């Protein structure tokens, strides 16, 4: 109720801008500062990249085909690359325009709708389109993602023409499914959690929802318009048809990303590696006794948690609910591999990824903060100014790490199983930064204490992070890397947090100030696009 009221107020304010809660995915926020994005390779004066012009990406597809999921995922990736991108969900506008509690007119999507429905439709679309123009013309936006059904060829052609008049290129992305299982899973996952279906069985709710869609949107034409730029994604990426996409690097990059994307939901867990015998980068030593103990407790905790989740789903009435298989990724560093040992022995698939090795600490390896300050005062000063991009002598910056992790990001999207990533805190920071759309400047300060496993649950509208407490760990191994220490990578073993926060990050950013501080019971924004409750 509250979120709905907020949405209405915001939508009716001069410039509709969604602000998500501080503790969830920031993909719908737009950073206030003109910061470089995590993996941005170059910057331009206009703030637009790839020497491309302005582009509107327009989704096409019936409800429950994963359009919103695709829009959000794509925005996440483009923003990560430094392309100024924003999503405009037409459903948000519809919801904000149609008073709460009132249903939308039955003929809303009809070709021969009544005059009042046509007017309503126009009003909603106009508002959304005005915001798109504003974003592209006055906020240096480069890509606007227009998330709507767009069922008819004629409508799509006139959209393209309309945008072309403003010198804006269009790219349509259609999600088309003939695999009933994919559609049903989508409906289950994102559509019928709405209050309309409280007390319904899953099967009845799915059936009811699909019938309503087909009576609401009786006509849908799949894209065949050879004169338009489009990407047709068939059955969640099984096949992609790319037509006439001619605006360069960016459109190919989008196709590249989409070939790795799928709509299925899976959880990602992040865990630190255990403490090692020798806490230096170069030694690459084995786990200490405490590290072994951590590995056991972490494994037990994770498996217990997954069982609980399964039980919850069963209790909710999903009778045949099965957990997705769990795959483990570690780096090629000994500590992370050994932390995965128990999982490996229990038959879980463990893959080693060389790109996931921790940030190279360079010359600062195993130096105390005092010594670094003494020996490299200028570097420390530079680091203070830009901890994300600064590189200590012979070290890697977080930016280097983000660029190095790009293949991992794409494979992360590709992975179908649940995934546990065991890595150094620096790697977890960057990967978390991608999944939760953090500001680059905040990434070096994210905290991952060792007694918590982070679980990221993808929702089509935004990702959600939860923390799972690992009980019974000795206190001294819990603290994460001391977040305020001005060294690129703190020793990886036992560390004491530094007193007195040197250079804490600025306040008021989309990402929480002291790294992620997700509440145990995360506040969930229930998404009910109007199209979802047709």
């Amino acid at each position, binding site marked *: 109720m509250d979120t709905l009221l907020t949405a209405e107020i915001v939508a009716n304010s001069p410039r509709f801008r969604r602000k998500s809660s501080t503790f969830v995915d920031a993909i719908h926020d737009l950073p206030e500062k003109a910061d470089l994005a995590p993996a941005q*390779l*170059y*910057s331009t004066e206009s703030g637009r990249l*790839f*020497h491309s012009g302005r582009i509107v990406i327009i989704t096409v597809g019936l409800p429950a085909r994963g359009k919103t999921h695709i829009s959000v995922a794509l925005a996440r990736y483009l923003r990560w690359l430094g392309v100024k991108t924003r999503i405009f969900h037409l459903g948000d506008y519809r919801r904000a325009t149609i008073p709460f509690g009132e249903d939308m007119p039955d003929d809303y999507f009809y070709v021969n709708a009544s005059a009042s429905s046509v007017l309503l439709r126009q009003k909603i679309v106009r508002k959304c389109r005005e915001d798109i123009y504003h974003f592209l013309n006055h906020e240096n936006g480069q890509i606007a993602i227009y998330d709507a059904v767009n069922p008819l060829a004629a409508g799509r052609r006139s959209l393209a023409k309309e945008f072309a008049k403003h010198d804006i290129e269009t790219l349509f992305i259609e999600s088309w499914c003939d695999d009933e299982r994919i559609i049903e899973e989508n409906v289950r996952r994102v559509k019928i959690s709405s209050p309309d279906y409280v007390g319904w069985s899953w099967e009845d709710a799915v059936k009811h929802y699909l019938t309503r869609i087909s009576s609401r949107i009786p006509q849908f034409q799949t894209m065949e318009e050879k004169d338009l730029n489009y990407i047709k994604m068939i059955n969640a*990426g*099984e*096949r*992609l*048809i*790319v*037509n*006439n996409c001619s605006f*360069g*690097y960016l459109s*190919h*990059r989008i*196709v*590249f990303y989409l*070939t*790795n994307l799928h709509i299925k939901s899976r959880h990602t867990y992040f865990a630190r590696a255990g403490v090692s015998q020798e806490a230096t980068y170069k030694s690459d030593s084995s786990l200490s006794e405490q590290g072994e103990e951590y590995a056991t407790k972490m494994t037990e905790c994770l498996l217990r948690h997954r069982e609980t989740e399964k039980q919850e789903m069963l209790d909710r009435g999903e009778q045949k609910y099965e957990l997705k298989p769990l795959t483990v990724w570690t780096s090629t560093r000994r500590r992370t591999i050994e932390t995965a040992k128990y999982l490996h022995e229990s038959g879980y698939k463990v893959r080693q990824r060389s790109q996931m090795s921790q940030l190279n600490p360079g*010359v600062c390896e195993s130096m105390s903060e005092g010594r670094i300050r003494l020996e490299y005062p200028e*570097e420390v000063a530079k680091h203070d100014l830009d901890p994300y991009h600064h*590189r*200590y*002598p*012979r070290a890697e910056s977080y930016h*280097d790490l983000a*660029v*190095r992790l790009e*293949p991992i990001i*794409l*494979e992360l999207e*590709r992975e179908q199983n649940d995934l546990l990533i065991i890595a150094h805190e620096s790697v977890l920071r960057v990967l978390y930064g991608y999944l939760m759309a953090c500001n680059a400047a905040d990434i070096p300060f994210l905290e991952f204490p060792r007694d918590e496993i982070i679980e990221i649950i993808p929702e089509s509208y935004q990702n959600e992070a939860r923390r799972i407490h690992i009980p019974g760990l000795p206190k001294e191994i819990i603290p994460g890397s001391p977040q305020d220490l001005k060294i690129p990578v703190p020793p990886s073993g036992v560390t004491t947090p530094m007193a007195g926060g040197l250079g804490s990050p600025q306040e008021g950013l989309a990402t929480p100030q002291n790294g992620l501080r997700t509440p145990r019971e995360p506040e969930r924004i229930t998404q009910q696009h109007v199209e979802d409750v047709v």
Partner: protein
Amino acid sequence: MVGLPARGKSLIAGKAMRYLAWVGIPARVFNVGRYRRHNTPQPSAKFFEPHNEEGEKMRRAAAEAAVSDMLAWFREDQGVVAILDATNSTRERRRWIYESCEKENVETLFVESTCDDEEVIMNNILEVKTTSPDYKGQDPEMAALDFRTRIRNYEQVYETIDENEKHYTYVKLINVGSTVIINQIKDYLSSRLVYYIQNLHIKPRSIWLSRHGESEYNLVGKIGGDSSISERGEAYAKVLPELMRKSGYPPNTKIVIWTSTLKRTIQTARHLAGTPGFGKLEWKALDELDSGVCDGLTYKDIADQYPEDFAARDEDKYNYRYRGGESYRDVVIRLEPIIMELERSENVIIVTHQAVLRCIYAYFLNTPQEQSPWMEVPLHTLIKLTPRAYGTEEQRFKADIPAVSTWRGKGTSAHHQEFPADQK
């Protein structure tokens, strides 16, 4: 590869191989034509008639030999990506390839290029008849005629990849990428390859490379920095438009100049940018290799102040990363978007810096990683690269303007020196 002759298959195969090698993935092309030429060096179109049993037998044998060598390469030499370059024009042939690979646990990705644009096909025919070993030393007109007959013979039996093969991983490029169908991509590397292939085109074009004109830092032997060009550098900038003309480019084409964001490249391209028909872009990614703490030092300073680094760099120049700076490997990674954009573009002249130019050059000429950082790229010289179906053609045009040498040999003292004449 799948496709009729003259659809740019060899071009795609060769490029994909170079790209993979450039990013550090062992790759190799197995060209069935080469195996076939072993016994029939210059066959006429008759050889390719569908009912020529003798021809069919020999072509089959060539394919078998190529596939068997390819699988041996995977088994014994830790190959990662092999490209089987042949027409593979029938469903049956593709099934045989798929099954042979499956037996050895090798994933297959079919790349089909189809084209019904006569102009593109004719261009390719012209290209092939002048460069293919099949027609070496023959009358070009006769060669073109014969080649067209050969294509007709293939057309009779050609089966495009369709619904019957939807369980395969494939990518189908229709009319040079105006439509692309990507089917069942199962792993990241394939998706990356498909991404790369999509950026390719087969229109004729050239790429010109030049370093900036001699800079003030060059004069005093310092590396890095953001200095202006010297008087002689300015003289080079002035003759660059003339040098471009001399190197030859088709009239009425648009040529885009790419520079870095550093003064010396922008100044060097200044006069050229003022010439009609030229456009200009500045790229941060084309900036010189960042030499970190050594920025603004001479090689002698570096040898004095950082003797270990100086030696370490000679030891493995490709992977050596300057303190607080970059390695050649780092530069290659940051140049990847440039390479992608370059593949998409047509005529481009790049005015950039020594290390960056070496990396770009290495991509086009497939120079191994151990050699590329030591390559000589003299100042005041324009390099013209023209992609051909069977490799990249290189021409160099020297402006007659003296400049200091900025080249230093491996393991030598800390001075710039002349590149030894016998290695040129």
